[in-house]
């Protein structure tokens, strides 16, 4: 049997709260440091301790980062899930398990290779403390894996040294546990396995980071000074990352005082309220939440839309409806975010797909919010937000200036003859605003959620109301020219009449290169459009109109993005084919391929490369 390198999926089945995360993380990080592209997925329960949790690492030399079905190596450390864990192994795959107790008969499979290791038994004499024993189990299997997969042991030990820097007492036992496992593997197992890793250069200069951390850091760089939030999975780490980074990067030298304020609010309503209050008073501010929080914030979002106050909201989507599956990923807040609140309300949305984009969009969203004087909602998701993944490194142009939008200072006001907060002076639908306390005589206005005229005076005049609503539409059009354009790739096959495209956004982009490659193998070549924002720009219209058929791939049941496209673009619904995955894991390349193929088989007239060529 030949040896394969750098191409497998390994899954760790653990019990939540058993300390497996650090060992599993070290595993992924070790491969990453060997230059091998890895994608990690933490599949965890809405629970703190005791329920099953999985950690999955896809190792792929070609750089496919999407989730792949089927497990090549199962590290089964949770008795509770053993049945399904064994079942999930691909034929020919491996099961690494603690054989301190024998594997039940019914779990035995002929088509997989069992690698038993009496971890618990081994550790009994080594560690007296039961809790330590449980913890070092994880390190021990990591040691074994280093042997089985041929991982550079120095990389792992190096990581232990870094991780426990300052807690030196912990380094030796960790190394000891690692060596126990490694030694056992070499002595009692066929190590390395035919599935192996080897050093690579495919990672390049990329970093490995989760999207929420990137978002938090991006908010620091983008100049956010006020963050208000309410804990909710999977968004919490955005605020935490902001605080973490700000605590290092935003401290005034000398006084050690903080150039930011972070408030853990009493609920999401308060969180967005604080953000709106701060932005109204001229501070860049943001909050992070997830679906239930978005629902709660809707009233305030409507206020900010109508009263035209900047706000940045990160929605790290999870599986709904209602509480849904709080620790599973989905892209099911598209509609709720786009039209959050009652009345004719709509909000610009940004759809980051990578950690780097989270960083970039964090700063961009703050600019856009100020420029457009409206809430900007960044739709990330659990998949992107909470999993370490490869990303381009963060960059900042030191010449970049924050776009604070149309704000008049005292001097501007002195030179302004007529100030009307909602006067469309420039024809772009955006009025000039002032911060409270700017000028003793001019520029003060009253902000309200009720209808008002161009001078911010309350009115119920039908004309004034309509006039205002129309201006908001003009502003909406302006927004479509300012938000990041979709990424479009057209195959050079114009003469072949390829008129089928595929459209996707956010984390659906992760499995897409692989899915497209798989489809080419089937003779199907698709033009692609990765949406990065809403409202949709002209480039999206051109893409939609130049393709007879567009697959819209997304991770929700109802094809919300497809509906949003139809709703806003007035496209023919028959031309938009929905591909939806919404089970809570992230969508896979195989799934996309399967859905596209199925459609092609049902609609045989669609062009294929093979047909065209023949």
């Amino acid at each position, binding site marked *: 049997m030949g040896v394969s390198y750098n191409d497998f999926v390994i899954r760790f089945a653990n019990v939540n709260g058993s300390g497996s995360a650090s060992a599993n993380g070290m595993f992924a990080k070790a491969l*990453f440091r060997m230059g091998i592209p890895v994608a990690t997925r933490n599949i965890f329960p809405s629970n703190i301790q005791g329920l099953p949790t999985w950690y999955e690492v896809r190792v792929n030399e070609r750089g496919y980062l999407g989730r792949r079905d089927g497990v090549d190596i199962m590290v089964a450390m949770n008795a509770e899930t053993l049945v399904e864990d064994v079942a999930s192994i691909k034929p020919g795959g491996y099961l690494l398990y603690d054989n301190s107790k024998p594997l039940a008969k019914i779990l035995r499979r002929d088509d997989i290779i069992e690698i038993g290791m009496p971890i618990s038994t081994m550790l009994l004499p080594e560690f007296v403390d039961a809790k330590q024993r449980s913890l070092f189990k994880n390190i021990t299997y990591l040691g074994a894996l280093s042997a089985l997969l041929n991982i550079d042991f120095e990389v792992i030990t190096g990581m232990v040294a870094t991780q426990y820097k300052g807690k030196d007492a912990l380094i030796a036992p960790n190394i000891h546990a690692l060596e126990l496992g490694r030694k056992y593997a070499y002595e009692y197992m066929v190590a390395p396995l035919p599935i192996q890793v080897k050093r690579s250069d495919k990672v390049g200069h990329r*970093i490995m*980071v989760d999207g929420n951390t990137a978002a938090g*850091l991006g908010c*620091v760089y983008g*100049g956010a*000074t*006020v963050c*208000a939030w309410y804990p909710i999975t999977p968004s919490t780490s955005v605020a935490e990352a902001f605080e973490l*980074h700000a605590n290092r990067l935003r401290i005034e030298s000398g*006084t*050690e*005082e*903080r*150039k930011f*304020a*972070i*408030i853990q*609010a*009493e*609920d999401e*309503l*308060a*969180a*967005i*309220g*604080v*953000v*709106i*209050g*701060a*932005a*109204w*008073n*001229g*501070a860049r501010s943001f909050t992070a939440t997830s679906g239930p929080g978005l629902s709660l914030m809707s009233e*305030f979002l409507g*206020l900010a839309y109508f009263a035209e106050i900047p706000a940045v909201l990160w929605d790290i989507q999870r599986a709904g409806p209602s509480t849904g599956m709080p620790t599973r990923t989905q892209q099911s807040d598209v509609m709720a975010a786009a039209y959050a609140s009652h009345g004719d309300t709509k909000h610009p949305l940004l759809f980051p797909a990578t950690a780097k984009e989270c960083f970039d969009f964090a700063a961009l969203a703050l600019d856009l919010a100020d420029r457009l004087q409206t809430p900007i909602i960044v739709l990330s998701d659990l998949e992107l937000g909470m999993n370490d993944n490869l990303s381009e*490194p*963060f*960059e*900042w*142009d*030191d010449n*970049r*200036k924050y776009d604070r939008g149309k704000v008049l200072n005292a001097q501007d006001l002195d030179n302004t003859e007529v100030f009307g907060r909602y006067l469309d002076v420039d024809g772009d639908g955006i009025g000039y605003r*002032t*911060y*409270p*306390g*700017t000028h*003793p*005589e001019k520029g*003060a*206005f*009253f*902000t*309200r*959620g*009720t209808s008002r005229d161009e001078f911010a005076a309350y009115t119920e005049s039908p004309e004034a109301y309509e006039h205002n609503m129309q201006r908001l539409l003009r502003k909406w059009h302006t927004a479509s020219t300012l938000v990041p354009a979709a990424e479009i790739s057209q195959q050079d096959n114009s003469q072949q009449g390829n008129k089928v495209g595929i459209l996707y956004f956010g984390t659906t982009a992760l499995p897409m290169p692989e899915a497209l490659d798989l489809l080419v193998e089937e003779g199907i070549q698709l033009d692609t459009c990765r949406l990065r924002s809403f409202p949709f720009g002209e480039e999206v219209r051109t893409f939609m109109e130049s393709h007879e058929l567009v697959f819209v791939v997304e991770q929700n049941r109802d094809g919300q993005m497809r509906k949003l496209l139809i709703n806003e673009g007035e496209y023919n619904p028959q031309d938009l084919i929905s591909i939806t995955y919404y089970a809570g894991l992230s969508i896979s390349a195989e799934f996309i391929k399967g859905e596209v193929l199925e459609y092609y088989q049902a609609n045989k007239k669609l062009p294929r490369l093979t047909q065209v060529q023949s």
Partner: protein
Amino acid sequence: MTFVAKPKAHHPRLPLNEIGLTRRDYEGSVSTLCAGCGHDSVSAAIVQACAELSIPPHRFAKVSGIGCSSKTPSYFLNKSHGFNSVHGRMPSVITGANLANRDLHCIGVSGDGDSASIGMGQFAHIVRRRINMLYIVDNNGTYGLTKGQFSATSDKGSTSKKGAPNLYEPIDLASMALQIGASFVARSFSGDKSQLVPLLKAALHHKGMAFIDVVSPCVAFNNHDGSTKSYEYIRKYGQNVVNADFIAEHEEITADYQPGTVEDINMPDGTILRMYKLDENYDPHDRVGALNYVQRRKEQGEIVTGLLYVDPDAIDCHDILRTVAQPLNEMGELELCPGNSALASINESYR
């Protein structure tokens, strides 16, 4: 309401304050509330207090929720920005405003519906957060704009205009504020500016959360016999314990008072808070005692007014957060952005 604009003309000998302005320079637009609404008197008291303090009239941030009370920020301090937000959420919005610019004077106006029902949570939490602000509740025990339903501060047994009794226990916001940790708690009455104006001045100078529950009768729906929030009732059963007065830094301290009944407190900003104790046994520095007193009196149907509690050395949210002295909203790239060089080590930490 009236659609006749209030004439700009003012009394030719209206006193000027220290920055050369009259009280009229602190006014807002003409109220659209019912004629005789207590809330308008509260607005007038705010106008007077701010003028007497000689704070530039554009250096306030006025925030409110929804309801009759929340309309009032339009009716004072026209030169300041105002924000009429959503029902019950004034506390969060003003929290943000205060975080953004700690130099502005924050005035939050709310009502009993706004603060004691839909906004109960936000009320409690802004008190906990110790936002440096003046929090006023125009408390009339009724829902005015929806025409006379009982509110959560309406006393059990008090009657609606049609005579139906309220069946539920009332929420006493002043007691709540005392219990949750407000560092300045007072209660007053819209019809008694001699008490209210000095309280407002002291509250505006107090650092931290200053809460004033102002009984402010609703002439349209809650000023009848059977109401415990009517002009007549509060005049009859209001019991003033401590009158406050505010003495600016440079004002001369006069000593025309009975020793033992007056206490001067030196405030951190150099001003003096003078307290006239009308009930000698009352100690406005004793939070628990104050709570007890207010509740005991309430059992007897009395409404304790005046400065109920003050902690002159209180800290505010910015102290807790250790934020810089410069207002956050004044900072730009220079102060806020760490720059590309800092990213090198950050990127490295993710390798």
